[in-house]
């Protein structure tokens, strides 16, 4: 795609045409073919850093309340039911917001979509400092939690900026480092509170002031996105739509193909029991250690933080593991990897609920548990890009939304009111993880197989992806991207499969299959 001088008004900070426009090597789509983690090269790496940091700030705000609960519950006179309800509210807002964000990104681009979402939910964070009743607490947590939909825009943005060989890594790191916010905040808020308290505020005022930190972080990260970000390497969305470079699909078709693909529903369910469990633990773990083991606010914060901090490497690690399994065993390897890692996570969760008699054992098991449950999130998004090509954005949004639904359900059943002690709730949650991971055995790709069944003879990736387009659309060539994707997915047949699964004897590219998101 050459730059079209007349038709395309390029906004953003490109240099004059004719000189190399980007510091990084790019492919024909202007997407970066490399990933330089410690660089801020514009627009690719700058976008990466803005995307993960703004998503990180949303996680910080959403989970800023749990580490301060011992103070908030006394100030507002909360009961265990109030706390449980607010925890559920904090993750339920994003269920539908994640679905809507996919569409918003399609329409206005990830830059405007994410910045608008973040700036419009920031008032809820600031208003957390002036709440005076349990219902106010529930409302601010609900509206703050809606900001978690920025996951979708972050992933969308990375998929626009990075080419196939690196998009998986970019998405894995962006997703993992964003989720990190849920862990870092457990340590950050008690420290901020302590500092403000030492300066001289009474406890019941100090926690209120502490909420301004996440609020300010969120505001500034969104302003940075608006000021310095751009949707695609070539510029912002409006220009690309005008020039006709992007084919606009119809929402109805995209929706239909997403909803009728059973694999999307299964992955939405299983993601609810890795990511959903991660959100639940973010809400519950600080109070659990504070109350059960009588440690102080900061120590409980340190322990709770170590759960979320594992995200630095565990989620990207899961994505890399998925890629490695695919290179040896194809899609069947990815499916087995996901089932195994998530089931082990479930077992460790049960163990965590059982070892509540020992502080050291609880901490150790929790750290181990965090690695497995977060790696499972990375492994899930190793499979999502292959479920559908036409409705990739919506399938990703469904999976992401399913994660939040899992969090809502789990908190409602096990961590709501005084019916179960927290350690019992954790044990049953582990059992539920194991049960709800079993549906993975039902996922079957005709061209690659499933966990227990091999591929059907003669089925091809091209057929699978072309099924999503009607004869008429195929004639017009709307499915060109799907055909390219199918060719690049030959590798998902595994080592034996990659020789001749596709009807075309396309030489296997050096570039691994395009991956839409993590």
């Amino acid at each position: 795609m050459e730059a079209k001088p007349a038709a395309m008004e390029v906004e953003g900070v490109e240099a004059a045409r004719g000189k190399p426009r980007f510091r990084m090597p790019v492919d024909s789509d202007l997407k970066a073919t490399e990933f330089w983690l410690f660089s801020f090269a514009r627009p690719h790496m700058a976008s990466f850093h803005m995307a993960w940091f703004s998503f990180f700030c949303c996680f910080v705000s959403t989970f800023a309340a749990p580490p301060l609960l011992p103070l908030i519950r006394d100030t507002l006179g909360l009961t265990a039911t109030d706390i449980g309800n607010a925890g559920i509210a904090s993750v339920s807002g994003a269920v539908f917001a994640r679905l809507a964000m996919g569409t918003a990104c399609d329409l206005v681009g990830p830059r405007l979509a994410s910045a608008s979402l973040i700036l419009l939910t920031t008032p809820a964070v600031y208003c957390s400092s002036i709440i005076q009743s349990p219902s106010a607490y529930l409302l601010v947590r609900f509206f703050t939690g809606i900001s978690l939909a920025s996951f979708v825009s972050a992933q969308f943005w990375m998929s626009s900026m990075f080419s196939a060989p690196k998009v998986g890594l970019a998405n894995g790191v962006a997703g993992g480092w964003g989720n990190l916010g849920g862990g870092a905040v457990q340590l950050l808020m008690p420290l901020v509170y302590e500092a403000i308290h030492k300066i001289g505020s009474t406890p019941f005022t100090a926690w209120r002031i502490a909420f301004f930190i996440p609020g300010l972080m969120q505001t500034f990260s969104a302003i940075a996105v608006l000021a310095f970000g751009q949707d695609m390497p070539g510029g912002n969305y409006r220009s690309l739509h005008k020039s006709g470079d992007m084919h606009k699909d119809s929402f109805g078709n995209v929706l239909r193909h997403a909803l009728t693909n059973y694999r999307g529903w299964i992955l939405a369910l299983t993601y609810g029991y890795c990511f959903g469990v991660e959100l639940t633990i973010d809400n519950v773990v600080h109070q659990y250690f504070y109350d059960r083991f009588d440690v102080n606010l900061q120590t409980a914060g340190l322990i709770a933080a170590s759960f979320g901090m594992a995200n630095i490497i565990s989620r990207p690690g899961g994505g890399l593991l998925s890629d490695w399994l695919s290179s040896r065993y194809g899609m069947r390897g990815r499916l087995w990897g996901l089932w195994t890692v998530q089931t082990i996570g479930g077992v460790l969760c049960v163990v965590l609920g059982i070892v509540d008699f020992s502080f050291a054992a609880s901490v150790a098991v929790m750290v181990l548990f965090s690695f497995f449950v977060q790696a499972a999130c990375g492994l899930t998004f190793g499979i999502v890009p292959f479920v559908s090509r036409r409705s990739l954005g919506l399938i990703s949004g469904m999976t992401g939304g399913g994660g939040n639904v899992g969090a809502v359900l789990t908190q409602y059943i096990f961590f709501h009111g005084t019916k179960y002690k927290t350690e019992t709730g954790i044990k049953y949650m582990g059992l539920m993880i194991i049960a709800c991971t079993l549906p993975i055995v039902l996922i079957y790709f005709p061209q690659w197989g499933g966990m227990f069944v091999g591929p059907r003879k003669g089925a091809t990736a091209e057929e699978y992806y072309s099924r999503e387009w009607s004869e008429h659309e195929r004639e017009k060539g709307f499915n060109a991207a799907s055909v390219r994707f199918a060719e690049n997915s030959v590798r998902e047949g595994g080592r034996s499969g990659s020789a001749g699964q596709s009807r075309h004897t396309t030489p296997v590219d050096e570039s691994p299959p395009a991956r839409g998101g993590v």
Partner: protein
Amino acid sequence: MAMARDFRVVLCTLLLVLGACHVTPAAAAGVRLSALSKTLVVEASPRAGQVLHAGEDTITVTWSLNTTAAAAAGADAGYKSVKLTLCYAPASQVGRGWRKAHDELSNDKACQHTIAERPYAAAGDGTFVYGVARDVPTASYYVRAYALDASGTQVAYGETAPEEYSFAVAGISGVTAPVRVAAGVLSACSVAALAVFLVLENRKKNK
């Protein structure tokens, strides 16, 4: 390889955690409330159901020895000091596991707020005027006094009858005018920043 790297990190973290975590918190002393003799008589100044304001009002606690009970239980020779505590009334414990009363005193969460610790006078009488602290939350309370021996272990107790008598404290909300103003201003600024950028975008588009 990602898996080997993950595994090594996990193993190191495990060893670190297990090694460093010999901090087993709250070594249980094993004193049970039911095993203590109730030899102190405690009275508190608020009337039943009166509402006190944290940071403003005071509570006068008086305690004395119940001589008949003390004679039955054994002399008060071991009593070295008296510890006064503010305890959550049963009504304020409902639905709140972090305020639950336990027979095992090291696990008891109901009497979290310490009013004062006074040396035990030979005659057994004492008075203390307590200014309700600013971090006492809104709830219903009663008063309990423990008699401690030289090592600080509880050996006897007394309390205002929790089932029949309790008074309320209205805690401070913590919301100050500067906090309110800051919240309002910053919220408005966030939304305004978005509006400004959107307007600028539209201007550039129409140029």
